[in-house]
């Protein structure tokens, strides 16, 4: 059992109420920050902690905060990105549902650090039931004087609102999120200007993930240096991992960064091994957009070292033999899963979710879906594999926002590591399209 920074009290009955939350030490960071620290001191603690953005990019949160422009007489905003949409990711939804005050406390302390007097939680519209939970908790916080005017007699004012999206993956990208929050289509903005200079309502804005913001209270209470002691190297602290796919115990796990991948998959404390007594085939360790790795490369790096659950270890080997931590969405594939089918599924997702602004992404995602569909359905051409690689290359890096990269990487990685499976589909369409047929490394179809 590692240290639980976010989830220590998450299973306490009634923790979603202000009363029980406060009994377990809730809102201490608000009192400490507002009464004994300057906003700059809070920013410094977060910098010292080494906390990195938990939404996927992994950018140091304290550094992001320090970029915020502070022109006189212009409001600043903190916006929480609760648009959790990356396939495989459900940690924020789980956390907000169980412990809404944890996020609200983080919003207050972080807003104080940034000098924001109005903050928003932008939540994906499908999670309307979580919005109701958050709004109930926010009402409790207002009633207790933790939100509104002159919080705890400190002279600091903060209004906090929740805003629902409408069902669009792209709104997890921070500038698309801001457009959506302003009541527009979720088309990402060109950068610069960055949100830190011109964000929500053209004012300086910080956008942070739910988990990032919810980690701030512990850092304020215990100090950034204490947080930095947890984890390994530049992967400090703990991380919520959403474990899904063909495992015995799917769910959300808070781990100290540095747990070996093998332990995470097979230990009963976490995933509990592969379901139905099957073998591990592959893992997508950070959400659908990061490269898939075959079993041997997810358990060990190319150099033969144990792969660890850290930003550095998961990306060891670059995209040739490594992947990414991403949002911490750990998707496990057993031996009965078809990589071609899964890659087609992901491509359909990105095609569906492309906002259509940039031609390489709008057209390229459609091409990839179409070509993968025909391979999966027994109509592939010999040159289709190279065509896919070429389309993926032409999307990557050629779009306003990272959705293009997110669409290209899984296709490129699936072909990199499972090329023979694609070739088998093309050469043996009849066998490959038989119900339950799966390629097992040899040219034999196995009926599941």
């Amino acid at each position, binding site marked *: 059992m590692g240290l639980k920074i976010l989830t220590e009290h998450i299973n306490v009955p009634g923790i979603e109420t202000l009363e029980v939350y406060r009994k377990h030490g809730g809102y201490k960071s608000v009192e400490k920050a507002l009464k004994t620290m300057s906003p700059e001191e809070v920013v410094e603690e977060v910098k010292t902690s080494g906390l990195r953005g938990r939404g996927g990019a992994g950018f140091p949160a304290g550094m992001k905060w320090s970029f915020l422009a502070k022109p006189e007489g212009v409001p600043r905003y903190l916006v929480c990105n609760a648009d959790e949409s990356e396939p495989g990711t*459900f940690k924020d939804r789980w956390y907000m549902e169980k412990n809404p005050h944890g996020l609200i406390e983080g919003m207050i302390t972080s807003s104080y650090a940034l000098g924001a007097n109005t903050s928003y939680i932008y939540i994906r519209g499908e999670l309307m039931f979580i919005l109701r939970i958050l709004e109930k908790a926010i009402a409790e916080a207002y009633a207790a004087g933790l939100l509104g005017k002159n919080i705890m007699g400190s002279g600091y004012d903060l209004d906090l609102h929740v805003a629902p999206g409408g069902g669009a*993956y792209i709104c997890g990208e921070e500038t698309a999120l801001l457009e959506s*929050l302003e009541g527009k*289509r979720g088309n990402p903005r060109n950068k610069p200007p960055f949100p830190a200079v011109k964000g929500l309502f053209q004012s300086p804005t910080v956008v942070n993930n739910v988990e990032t913001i919810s980690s701030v209270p512990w850092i304020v209470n215990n100090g950034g240096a204490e947080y930095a002691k947890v984890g390994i190297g530049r992967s400090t602290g703990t991380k919520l991992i959403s474990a899904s796919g063909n495992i015995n115990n799917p769910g*959300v796990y808070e781990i100290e960064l540095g747990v070996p991948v093998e332990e995470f998959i097979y230990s009963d404390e976490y995933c509990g091994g592969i379901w139905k007594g099957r073998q591990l085939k592959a893992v997508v360790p950070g959400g659908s957009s990061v490269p898939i790795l075959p079993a041997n490369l997810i358990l060990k790096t190319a150099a033969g070292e144990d792969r660890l659950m850290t930003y550095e270890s998961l990306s060891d080997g670059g995209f040739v033999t490594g992947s990414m931590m991403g949002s911490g969405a750990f998707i496990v594939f057993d031996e009965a899963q078809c990589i071609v089918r899964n890659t087609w599924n992901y491509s359909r997702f990105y095609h569906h979710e492309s906002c259509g602004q940039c031609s390489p992404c709008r057209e390229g995602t459609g091409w990839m879906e179409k070509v993968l569909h025909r391979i999966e359905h027994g109509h592939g051409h010999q040159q289709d594999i190279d065509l896919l690689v070429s389309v993926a290359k032409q999307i990557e890096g050629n779009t306003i926002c990272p959705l293009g990269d997110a669409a290209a990487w899984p296709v490129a990685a699936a072909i990199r590591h499972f090329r023979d499976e694609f070739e088998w589909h093309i050469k043996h369409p009849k066998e490959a399209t038989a119900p339950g047929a799966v390629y097992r490394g040899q040219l034999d179809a196995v009926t599941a």
Partner: protein
Amino acid sequence: MAETINEVKFSDAAMAEIQRYISHYPEGRHKSALLPILHIAQAEFGGWVSPEVMDKVAEILDIQPIEVYEVATFYTMFNLKPVGKHVLEVCRTGPCCLRGADELINTLKRKLNIEEGETSADGMFTLKPVECLASCGTGPMLQVRELFYENIDSEERVDEFLAMMRQKEHETPVWAQQS
């Protein structure tokens, strides 16, 4: 078109909820409330937003109708055509498929005798496959209005679910409960 617009009338509870959302934004930034208002409109008017409803929303926010249309057509949660009583929004994305989402969709199609995007003959169910709903650990799953129904991983569970839904009325949204 003015006569048609006049026919669309939000309830007092809905108008109060709309005003609450508008109050969350700075002066002159009231358009920000557009997405929340479209959700309220969809709950008010039978699970979809017609052009007349969108025009009414534009009137309330004092913006051009096109500003509402372009948003309503961008976001997948807004239904632009009439739907059945219960819209079954089934997750079809990778992680749910690893646990049987394809089977769930096929079973629903067979039992309801409809294809994706269609409504059953009795008007009870519309089948609407959607992308990842952040419920990957409890898939296969689906959403109806504000609620999630999870781990629907066998034909028996599908039967139980459909039987329950046939008896079920819509939950009243929280904002409409006081009135």
